[in-house]
């Protein structure tokens, strides 16, 4: 078990007082910041690049490279932490922010220093009310100790940190949706190109935008070095990962694993295996937007991006959702379709209309109105979304839905033939209320 887990971010996570400045200092906190302020910003960027750290929010983009895309010398420029954690199945960022908020703050400050930011923001989803309050207290605590504000630790470097709350939109976790919302506009993405945040971000200024967990890794890299960071994990997926195990397992929760461990080990050993002795039917390894893995694929998979991608899915946000074989995949997928239809910002045609269409179709099939041609139609609609949309939300809907239909076609065919859901014995996921159709 200890080989599967490797505690860096979650070291002593249950230590009393860890969320206070005093406790964090005992944990070893703010040593990395002190060291960082003696380094050249570029050297920090290089260390992060060498470490192979990739974004932990879902896209997996190399962090050092993202920072290096910001044009030199353009001011103002901003550092933003993406704490809008909204990918269904994902709860690692809240875990970290609730228990070790200073770690997140320190990572943000070092990153801000590394990119020469003029100000920093933590954008927290509005539903995390308690965390918003906690982070504000954390910033004030840090300010009181000269860690935030003017002349940090006497270094001459200053940085203000603003806690900004979202207002209930998945699309505001998308980088451009977030930055638009931050600037006070409707939270809708802008096309890339040209709106790559590193070049044109919030208020059209260069912006480094990183996930909370990504930033939480930065202090370690600064203090211990890129090689130490890489000593755990695989060649292309270096370091540890906070995975969110959920679904029909005995021990759902957040586990800080070494990247590269077998997925089966995560589920069986860490997760305690399938609940109620059921059999595993499917897994979404990277949140609700990832393609499904069948039971056979799960046996082959290891917890790193290379392996999961080679099996036709994605490592995504690290949310591993485990589904047993008593679960109707059509009903499950129709819940996904509901989510994307509700969360679509509506700006681009294929996502706006396509997610509506998929939501209506899947509801209809689950309710017993499925037709033989629907399976092919769902795939065609997903294909018309894939690659044609303005941001990744469209694909976040199309990929899992298409994968569900293609890999679990039997479930769909059974619905069409039975004019209803053959799994109807079971209580639906959301309770009887989930039977209501539409908005």
């Amino acid at each position: 078990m200890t080989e599967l887990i490797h505690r860096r971010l979650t070291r002593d996570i249950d230590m009393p007082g860890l969320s206070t400045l005093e406790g964090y200092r005992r944990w070893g906190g703010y040593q990395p910041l002190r060291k960082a302020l003696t380094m050249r910003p570029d050297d920090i960027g290089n260390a992060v690049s060498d470490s192979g750290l990739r974004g932990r929010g879902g896209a997996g983009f190399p962090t050092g490279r993202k920072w290096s895309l910001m044009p030199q010398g353009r001011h103002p420029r901003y550092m933003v932490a993406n704490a809008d954690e909204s990918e269904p199945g994902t709860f690692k960022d809240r875990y970290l922010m609730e228990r070790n908020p200073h770690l997140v703050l320190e990572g943000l400050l070092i990153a801000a220093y590394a990119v020469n930011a003029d100000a920093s923001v933590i954008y927290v989803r509005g539903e995390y009310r308690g965390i918003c309050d906690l982070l504000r207290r954390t910033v004030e605590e840090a300010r009181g100790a000269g860690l935030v504000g003017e002349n940090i630790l006497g270094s001459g470097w200053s940085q203000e940190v603003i806690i900004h709350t979202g207002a209930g939109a998945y699309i505001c976790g998308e980088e451009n949706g977030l930055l638009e919302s931050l600037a006070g506009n409707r939270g809708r993405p802008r096309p890339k190109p040209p709106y790559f945040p590193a070049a044109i971000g919030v208020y059209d200024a260069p912006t480094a935008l990183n996930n909370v967990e990504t930033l939480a890794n930065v202090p370690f890299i600064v203090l211990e070095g890129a090689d130490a960071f890489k000593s755990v994990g695989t060649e292309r997926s270096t370091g540890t990962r906070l995975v969110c195990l959920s679904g029909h397992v005995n021990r759902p929760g957040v586990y800080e694993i070494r990247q590269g461990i077998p997925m089966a080990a995560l589920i069986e050993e860490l997760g305690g295996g399938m609940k109620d002795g059921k059999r595993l039917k499917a897994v979404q390894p990277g949140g609700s937007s990832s393609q499904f893995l069948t039971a056979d694929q799960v046996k082959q998979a290891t917890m790193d991006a290379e392996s999961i991608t080679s099996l036709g899915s994605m490592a995504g946000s690290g949310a591993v959702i485990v589904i047993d074989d008593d679960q109707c995949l059509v009903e499950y997928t129709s819940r996904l379709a509901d989510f994307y239809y509700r969360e679509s910002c509506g700006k681009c045609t294929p996502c706006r209309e396509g997610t509506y269409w998929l939501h209506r179709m899947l509801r209809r099939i689950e309710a017993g109105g499925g037709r033989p041609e629907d399976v092919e139609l769902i795939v065609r609609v997903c294909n018309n979304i894939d690659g044609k949309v303005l941001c990744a939300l469209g694909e976040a809907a199309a990929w899992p839905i298409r994968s569900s239909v293609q890999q679990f076609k039997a479930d769909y065919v059974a619905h069409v033939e039975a004019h209803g859901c053959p799994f109807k014995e079971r209580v639906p996921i959301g309770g009887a209320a989930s039977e209501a159709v539409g908005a």
Partner: protein
Amino acid sequence: MPEQPYSGPATPRAGSQAPSGTVPPAPPSDDLVTITINGRQVQVSKGSSLLYACLDNGIPVPFFCDHRKLDPIGACRMCLVQIEKVPRLATSCTVACTDGLVVETESDSVLEARAGVIEFLLINHPLDCPVCDKGGECDLQDYSIYHGTGLSSFVEDKLKYPKPIPLSDRILLDMERCIKCERCVRFFDEITEDGQLVLLNRGVHTMIGTFSGRPLDSNFQGNIMEICPVGALTSSDWRFATRPWDMRSTPSVCPTCSVGCNISVQTRDDRLVRYMSRENPHVDDGWLCDRGRYGFHFVHQPGRILRPRIKTAGTGEPVEYEIAIQQVASKLQKVVQDHGAESVGAIASPEATNEELFLFQRWIREVIGSPHIDHRLMLDAPAMSPDDFALSIDDFDSCHAVFILGDEATLDLAPILELRLRKARRHHRTRLIPIHNRSVSEMLDEVSESETEIGIVAPESLHGDANRFAARLNETGRHARRLIVPTHANSRGAADLGCLPDQLSGYRPVVGRGGMGTWEMLEAAGTGRLSALIVMGPTLLSAMTDDPLVQRAMDRVELLVVLDILESGLSEAAHILFPLHTFAEKEGTYTNLEGRIQRLRQAIPPVASTPPDWRILQDLANGSQAGWNYRHPAEVMRDIVAAVPAYGIDRAGERARWSDRDVI
């Protein structure tokens, strides 16, 4: 922490609201680059939009949300094209052309993507074509035929909305038809800059609504109906009136103000139905104001004067045209015999064409021999000169700052100027300074050190202030130019051609004593010093017949000859009355406020049975032995050019050439 986190968009559009989600276009570049479209190499401006590079080179690419006058947003996904070495299809509207770009617009993946977008747009779009006013000029119809698959696979329920939703008394919104291209919202963000329309809700439930929750309150609403690619925004003015293919379209200019926005007058069965914009980048830039756009209903109004009338013993009786002409001739001859040529006063219409005004003032000055002629209703107006309009609309872009004396009241005289000024600020950083009741010294204090190119926009009533301000600026070594905004469509032409008491055509000073201005003439007519008044309408006098000064003049004067379009107190008081034709019923030219000479074209047969207005004037003058034999307004224009060489332009639409600066 930076003192001002928001230092404005990185793109050169200071002073505007930051548009959300739009892609700022590159500033126009002189550099050309070579790109390859479907195997053909073409040269385009570096950084220009790939979509327009295709369209301007004859390669059709469908699109909904983009528009030449708006910043692109890449929302509709209809303009997707395939760019070599780029794995995903790209929206051509957001791609800036770079050297060596290779693009395919008709590959299988592009065609499939287009069919997909059309299919998506049609799943919630109602099958309203039979009852939708946009039918026949609808982009969605056209692209569905060209790029769609023809059969729908959608068997779910379409979204329903109450319809239509009145956005105002002029514009009706149909949310079922709306394809969320956001052109209307962006129009109010980027063009009028008052943010009146916003998007409400999210996703497929996105709706268009007013920010205030109250009806749209804008003089530019009609434009969103034109730019809407589908029938989501329709006009209540001509709802269900016609199909586009049943209309005839005649190019002309709007007669409502001095800008002369270029329009297409669209008629059905010889009745005007609507105007559409006929984009002139130098004048209207493709926009119309509502006052102009919906201001043509007077053409078919019941109060049109239809036949010549002569008043004998208190009541006016219709007479034959020739009789009326002959009566004017004989009565005028008597007045001149009894009281002299200087007892005749003439008031010209600032809405008459150049050809008519030229003939009118020739008749009064040369044939009758009176110096009293005016087209304005102003006391103590300073002498006019071509410097009054040295500043053209195009020149706004090159000004560092433009002062608008009188602010809204001035812009109300020529509403489109507001949009042109905002565009100059948005794209060229021109500073706009509205001025209310400030002295010239105070205005001078407003000018900053580095601002050397200054524009001054002022109404006639502030003509003196504008002149003095310009003079002081030029003394400081700056280059200040004025644009005096007149009140009517051809006020400028009337001044250019000498319908002024103290200036001849071409702004030559009158030799000897000048004549009386309008107010003086009215007073003189009321006290018997003037014995005859000839009023060529339409003029503001027709609305002022309750004014004691006007009444005394009409009652006292021995001979009142009126030519006009609509019945009024003036037409009733006339001793001899002639009907005139509206702008839509005749050929001729108007000169706009910048000195630009533009053609009117006849769109419908005349409502009144009399000859064209210019011919009435020729017949009247010949009644006083003028000996004219013009056969067509173009022949009159030849004589205008001889008298006023500045009017010798190469083609209609150019500015009159008062100096070397005035070429185009």
